[in-house]
């Protein structure tokens, strides 16, 4: 596989890796490369593109913060986790995150200087950070981030809004569905679940209210059937290839991102580029895993980007 990758744009990025080549190493190297390309964009950008690009990095920052906090919970060393953090989400106060005990601590002491500060409004609480609360924190942060990003794009107006707003709306709806699906059978209450849904998108507000009451996959499917876009997606779940809901959503996202390249002079191309690169990385990692687990038949169940 290393040889095949050498013939593409990726070139010799794996050249310095010693054997054995694990899936995790491939993933890390690809991320570094993407980060390099992204930094290149950023260094050449002016306002408001640089704000747009900063918004894009916020989602990775949120993931890194949660990773660090989980690591603190598991009593792991900071250095170990820092190595695994997503490079696009790097910020200077990262090492200090593991000291925080409660979300307000986290905010006041550490994150107040980062772009994540405005997203903490709904998350301030004195509860200690255990698993349930970390998950809630992650989802609430992401919700505020998405809403802020959406508002930014909308205010920017013009082609960017035309292109980005549907993509972000789909992202919001997707999160609502996935949160609902994964919360079946866990200790997350329905009211808590409802607070995690982003307040925009096609599902807002009636769909979200219905989703909050759903208790199993079929009920969720009924809610989705009300919306023309989501009905065919849910029907494609299962089927012959054993597709999961996440697969179907990824496919739809890829389609929307590819369409973003059809318009000119808007910022959506940067977003679409990064997201499509991410999908490419996911595909490569999937293929690598299939090879290492000797499931050659499953290799083709990745999502092609045309």
């Amino acid at each position: 596989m290393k040889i095949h990758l050498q013939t593409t744009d990726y070139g010799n990025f794996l050249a310095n890796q010693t054997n054995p080549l694990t899936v995790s190493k491939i993933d890390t190297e690809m991320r570094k490369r993407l980060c390099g390309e992204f930094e290149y964009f950023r260094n050449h950008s002016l306002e408001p593109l640089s704000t747009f690009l900063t918004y894009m990095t916020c989602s990775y920052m949120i993931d890194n913060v949660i990773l660090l906090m989980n690591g603190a919970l598991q009593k792991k060393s900071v250095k170990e986790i820092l190595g695994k953090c997503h490079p696009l989400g790097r910020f200077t106060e990262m090492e200090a995150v593991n000291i925080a005990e409660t979300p307000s601590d986290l905010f006041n002491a550490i994150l107040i200087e980062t772009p994540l500060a405005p997203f903490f409004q709904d998350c301030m609480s004195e509860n200690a950070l255990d698993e349930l609360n970390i998950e809630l924190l992650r989802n609430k942060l992401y919700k505020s981030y998405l809403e802020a990003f959406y508002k930014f794009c909308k205010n920017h107006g013009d082609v960017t809004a035309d292109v980005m707003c549907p993509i972000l709306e789909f992202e919001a709806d997707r999160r609502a569905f996935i949160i609902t699906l994964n919360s079946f059978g866990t200790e997350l209450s329905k009211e808590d679940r409802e607070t995690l849904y982003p307040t925009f998108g096609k599902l807002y507000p009636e769909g979200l209210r219905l989703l909050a009451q759903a208790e199993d996959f079929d009920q969720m499917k009924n809610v989705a059937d009300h919306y023309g876009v989501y009905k065919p997606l849910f029907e494609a779940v299962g089927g012959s290839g054993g597709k999961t809901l996440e697969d179907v959503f990824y496919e739809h996202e890829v389609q929307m991102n590819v369409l973003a390249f059809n318009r000119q002079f808007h910022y959506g191309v940067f977003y679409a580029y990064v997201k499509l690169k991410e999908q490419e990385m996911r595909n490569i990692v999937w293929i690598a895993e299939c090879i290492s687990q000797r499931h050659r038949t499953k290799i083709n169940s990745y999502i092609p980007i045309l």
Partner: protein
Amino acid sequence: MAALDLRAELDSLLLQLLGDLEELEGKRAVLNARVEEGWLSLAKARYAMGTKSVGPLQYASHMEPQVCLQASEAQEGLQKFKVVRSGVHAPEDVGPREGALRRRKGPTKTPVPQSSDAPRDPLNWFGILVPHSLRQAQASFRDGLQLAADIASLQNRIDWGRSQLQGLQEKLKQLEPGAA
């Protein structure tokens, strides 16, 4: 006469041994299938959640198993292994095989006297909202665990059977020259 009895015993022992071997093969195949399924589901979960979210970062380096191995002595000094949840405090000593049973995403156990809270489900290491494939992986590995204990018992029985067989064959040899 004694030789005839011995032969009959030998035959029945051989039949039982062959039956056990067949069962062992079957169980091994199922175990392999389960473990493969488990790893594939883990790969799918990594696809959905991101590669770094399902990996060695998520679990502490010091784990406590949720499931214990109970070794009991059946008749004729034969050891049987049973997989037991740690909530049930087993009076017999827990076998030293636990170390070998550790898996990356395997069950964890809490030492019963120590902690007051219920044993933590290892699924929660990866967050509260985990994708379906991760739950499937856990189910596959759990089934595999049960099978592993059965396989260990079976293998013990087979070894015991073989040694019995050898003993009987020697006795027969001793009797034969005498009878002839």
